[in-house]
C-alpha cells in the first residue's frame, strides 16, 4: 500500500480536474516550444519539460525555471496536436512546487504569488503597493530606479492607488475563504 507514485503519475493526478490528454500523449513535435514567446528564457523548452516529466526526472523538472516562466498565454495549448493542456501542466507544477517548497531559489514568482494571495485574503481586492517589496529589491539599482520613475509617472497621472481597496462584506468574505482553506493555512 505504500507504493511510491512515479512523478508522471503524480502530475497526472494534479491534472485530474483538467480536460485534455495526459502528458504521456506528448509526441515531442515541438509545436509548443516553437509557439512559446518565453522559450528563449527558459532553462528547458516546454517540449523538453514534457519529456522530462514523462521520464520521471522529478528533481530536474522542479529545479527548472520553465514552469515559473510560463506567462499563462495558452498559445501552446490551443496548438498542441496531442491536445495536452500544457498551460494547466505549468500551473499544476507551480502549485506542486509551492506545496513542496521546491523551486529554484532565485525566482520571484513563488513569493509574489503567495503575497498576492494573502493580500486578497486581507482586503478582497488588489492593492499594488503591497506587492512591490516582493520584487523591487531584486532588480538591482538601475532596475529599482527605473521602477521608481515609472511609478512616479503613474502617480502624477493619478493611476496609482494610495489607499488599499477593500470589499464591503470583508468578514463574510474571510469566513467564505475559511471554508476552503482553514484560517492559518496561508501563513
Amino acid at each position, binding site marked *: 500500500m505504500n507504493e511510491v507514485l512515479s512523478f508522471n503519475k503524480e502530475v497526472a493526478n494534479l491534472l485530474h480536474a483538467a480536460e485534455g490528454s495526459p502528458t504521456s500523449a506528448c509526441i515531442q513535435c515541438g509545436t509548443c516550444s516553437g509557439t512559446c514567446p518565453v522559450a528563449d*528564457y527558459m532553462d528547458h523548452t516546454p517540449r523538453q519539460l514534457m519529456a522530462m516529466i514523462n521520464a520521471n526526472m522529478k528533481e530536474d523538472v522542479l529545479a527548472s525555471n520553465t514552469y515559473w516562466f510560463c*506567462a499563462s498565454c495558452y498559445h501552446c495549448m490551443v496548438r498542441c496536436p496531442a491536445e495536452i493542456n500544457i498551460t494547466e501542466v505549468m500551473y499544476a507544477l507551480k502549485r506542486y512546487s509551492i506545496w513542496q517548497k521546491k523551486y529554484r531559489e532565485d525566482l520571484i514568482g513563488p513569493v509574489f504569488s503567495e503575497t498576492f*494571495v494573502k493580500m486578497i485574503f486581507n482586503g478582497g481586492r488588489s492593492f499594488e503597493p503591497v506587492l512591490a517589496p516582493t*520584487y523591487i529589491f531584486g532588480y538591482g539599482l538601475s532596475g529599482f530606479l527605473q521602477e521608481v520613475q515609472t511609478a512616479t*509617472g503613474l502617480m502624477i497621472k493619478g493611476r496609482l492607488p494610495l489607499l488599499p481597496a477593500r470589499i464591503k462584506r470583508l468578514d463574510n468574505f474571510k469566513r467564505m475563504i475559511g471554508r476552503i482553506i482553514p484560517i492559518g493555512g496561508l501563513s
Partner: protein
Amino acid sequence: MKEFAYFPGCSLEKLATSYNLSALESTRKLGVNLKELEDWNCCGSTTYFHVDELLAYTLCARNLAQAEKMGLDLVTPCSACYKNTYFAAASFKRDPDLAEHVNFALEEDNLHFSGNTAVKHLIEVYVKDVGLEEIKSKVTKPLEGLHVAPYYGCQIMRPRKDHEDVEQPRFFEDLLAAIGATPVDYPLKMRCCGGSLLITSRKAAFSMVHDLLQCALDSGATLIATACPMCQVNLECYQQQVNQEFGTNFSMPILYFTQLVGLALGIPAKKLGIGKELVSLEPELLRVTKRQPAVER
C-alpha cells in the same frame, strides 16, 4: 435598454482608470447599461491559480453569484477577469462536486451560484450584442486616417471555448473599421504581452513587449488598441524601460478600444480618460480630430 452586471476588476480602479471611464461612457452611448456588481472581489488573477485552484474558483464564484442575484449576465472589460470567470462558470457546470463545495463556502456570504449567468468580455458586447452596423450608425466623428494595430492579446481568445478561430480572428479589425479607423495587418496580434512576467521575469517580458512594439511600428500603426488593462500597462508603462534596455526609441500610444469608440461617438476626450497616458497621443489625436467640429460639452 440592454443591461449587464458589470465586473470592472481591480486594475480598473486606478491603474486602468481610463478604461473604466471610457467603458462606462461609450457603452452607455451605445444604449447598453453597465450595472456594477455591488461588492465584487478580485478574480484571482493568475496568482491564485498558482497557489490553490479551489480558492481561485471560489473567488470567481462569488462574483458570478452576485450577477446571478441581479438576474443579469456578467460582463467584464479585463481579459484576465474574463478568462477566470468564464472558465470557472464552465467548470461548475461540468463538475457538480466542485459546484457544491464552492456553494458551501458561498453560504457564508449568503450567496449561491446555480450556473444561470453567462460571462462575456466587453468587446464581445460591442461586436455581438450591439453589433457593428449599429455602432457604425452612431459614429459622428469617424477616426479617418488613423492606423491602428488591433492587439487581441491572449485571454480573450484563449483557451479555446468552442470551435471559434483562435489563430486569425477578425472582429477587432472589423470594429476599428466600423468607427472609421484603418486597422493594420498586425502579425503579432495574438501574442502574449508578458502578463505578470513584467514583475517576475523582467528580461523575458521586456523582450516580449519590445517585439510587440516593433511589430506594430513595422506594420505602419501609429497606435495600438487593446482590450485588456494588463496589455495596456505592459505595453505603455514599460515602454521607457524597454527603450533603455534595447536602445530603441518607441513612443507608441496604447489606447483602449472603448476610448477609440468613444471618440468616434463624439464623446469628449477627457470623459474617456484621455490625458492619463504616459505615452502621449496628443499629436496623433490632433491630426485626426482637427478636421472635425469642436468637441461638444
